[in-house]
């Protein structure tokens, strides 16, 4: 995503300033959709001019000025349009107040913007795209690139998302205290999805996609700074860091997936692990345990084992039991079955999987077959395990996972062929 010709420092500066500038412009003109377009244009203008002319003394004021100018142009043309339509005379100054009348309170703008972009009226893909642009300061082209769709399609998606928000009539401001908790969960979920989008490998411009996880961490960090006492925000940030710490080790030289037990743990990023564990420890001490904290705790247990054999599976099992009590999520049940197998033996895990066969949410899902194959292999039934790896490979829509599962199937068949 560094295709703007900017050095990393300017790039970060621009991205950090984007939500602040947008907040100021929205507050002034009270039009989220148009203000968002104006700020996007200001960011693009900065990316063109700054490398040539140097970073201005007050970059924030520079961006606000350019965005205001764009907004004024927009208001003027809107006015002209309306005048053409209604022949009414309106007060231009009222619609486009002078720049020096700007209020400078941008304390919570990042948070307000996140609440708007992760609005419940939006589908996840729309919320993700809008968040990356309005709060993350990415260009439409960069977002389109990351999701491998044409730029016009992404522009249209963003524009529709803004129309939906406008139609919902939500004012620019923090949600009411009753709504706040639920709306914050929606924000965290979108950030989690952005992280997962980036947590990828193989085909496509994957380096760019890896930056999506970096972007998710940056945004979650910003939320954590604004809401330092929210344990789930800290939990999500910890989860991302503790997972991200293994990103280099989880892919081989041929971009093949390497599962946890076979990863070279020397490649794990200890700085991220320490930060994640510190965040998690502080969050857990606050006493309001949530799903992100528990998932982060599982990641921490893995990260703390110097060797795969030293993994504290009884603790992971206890954490999944807590998670199971909190949510009725079949993926949690699957991971719980793995933990049961690691602690009490594969047949106990397989027994739990049989109960999942009738779960419609998992019917035909490759993950169920993949876990079954894994546990069958643990139980020594290589032939059936190989069969289930193949079924799983046929059901996944992820290329890296299909390749991984095919290799597992092939590995087990080979062992059988070589057996006397």
């Amino acid at each position, binding site marked *: 995503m560094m295709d703007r010709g900017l050095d990393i420092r300017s790039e970060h500066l621009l991205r950090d300033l984007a939500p602040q500038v947008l907040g100021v412009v929205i507050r002034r003109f009270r039009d989220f959709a148009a203000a968002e377009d104006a700020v996007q244009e200001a960011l693009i203008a900065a990316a063109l001019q700054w490398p040539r002319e140097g970073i201005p003394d007050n970059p924030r004021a520079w961006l606000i000025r350019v965005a205001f100018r764009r907004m004024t142009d927009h208001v003027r043309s809107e006015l002209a349009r309306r005048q053409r339509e209604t022949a009414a005379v309106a007060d231009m100054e009222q619609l486009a107040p002078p720049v020096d009348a700007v209020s400078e309170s941008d304390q919570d703008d990042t948070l307000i913007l996140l609440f708007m972009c992760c609005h419940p009226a939006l589908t996840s893909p729309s919320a993700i795209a809008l968040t990356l642009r309005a709060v993350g300061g990415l260009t439409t082209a960069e977002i389109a690139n990351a*999701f491998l769709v044409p730029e016009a399609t992404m522009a249209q998606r963003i524009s529709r998302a803004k129309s939906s928000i406008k139609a919902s009539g939500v004012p620019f401001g923090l949600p009411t205290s009753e709504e706040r908790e639920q709306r914050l969960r929606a924000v965290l979920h979108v950030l989690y999805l952005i992280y997962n989008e980036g947590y990828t490998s193989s085909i496509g411009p994957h380096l760019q996609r890896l930056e999506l996880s970096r972007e998710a961490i940056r945004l979650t960090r910003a939320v954590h700074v604004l809401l330092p006492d929210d344990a789930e925000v800290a939990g999500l940030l910890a989860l991302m860091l503790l997972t991200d710490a293994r990103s280099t080790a989880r892919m081989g030289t041929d971009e093949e*997936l390497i599962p946890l037990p076979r990863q070279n743990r020397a490649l794990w990023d200890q700085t991220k692990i320490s930060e994640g564990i510190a965040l998690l420890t502080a969050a857990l001490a606050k006493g309001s345990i949530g799903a992100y904290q528990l998932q982060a705790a599982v990641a921490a247990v893995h990260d703390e084992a110097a060797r795969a054999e030293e993994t504290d599976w009884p603790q992971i099992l206890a954490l999944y039991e807590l998670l199971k009590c909190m949510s009725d999520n079949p993926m949690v049940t699957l991971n719980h079955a793995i933990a049961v197998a690691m602690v009490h033996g594969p047949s106990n895990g397989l027994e739990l999987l049989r109960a999942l066969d009738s779960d419609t949410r998992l019917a035909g899902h490759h993950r169920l077959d993949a876990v079954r194959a894994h546990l069958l292999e643990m139980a020594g039934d290589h032939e059936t395990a190989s069969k289930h790896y193949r079924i799983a490979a046929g059901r996944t829509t992820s290329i890296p996972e299909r390749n991984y599962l095919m290799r597992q199937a092939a590995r087990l068949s080979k062992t059988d062929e070589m057996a006397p």
Partner: protein
Amino acid sequence: MKYILLMVGAKAGVDTYRAWSEKDIQAHFAHLKGINKELKERGEFVANEGLAPPDQAKVVRAGTDGTPITDGVFPEAKEFLLGYWMIDVDHPQRAYEVAARLSAGPGPGGAPLGMPIEVRQIMSGRADELP
């Protein structure tokens, strides 16, 4: 999630299409154009192409030395790929909905053709959580 919608036509259908009236052809393409417009407006459009008529199609195989061996038209084939749409939608139902609209494109006299549309999900480079 991305899908490819494959419009497959029977050999007989391709032949009779050539006998359509100007008006019927226009109505059919207006229908497809309307769908493309909607896909673009909804931010779902990825790509769309129509393929040249099967008369010019070649089947290529590598010879023992790797040189291409081309067969002419494949008279034994009963069905041909006529064109495709790639879309990025929120859920599979939406892909089926678009496919049904494509299938309902008008034929001679305006009656829906009911062409079969094959709906296939496109694989992604993204790996979900690791096992």
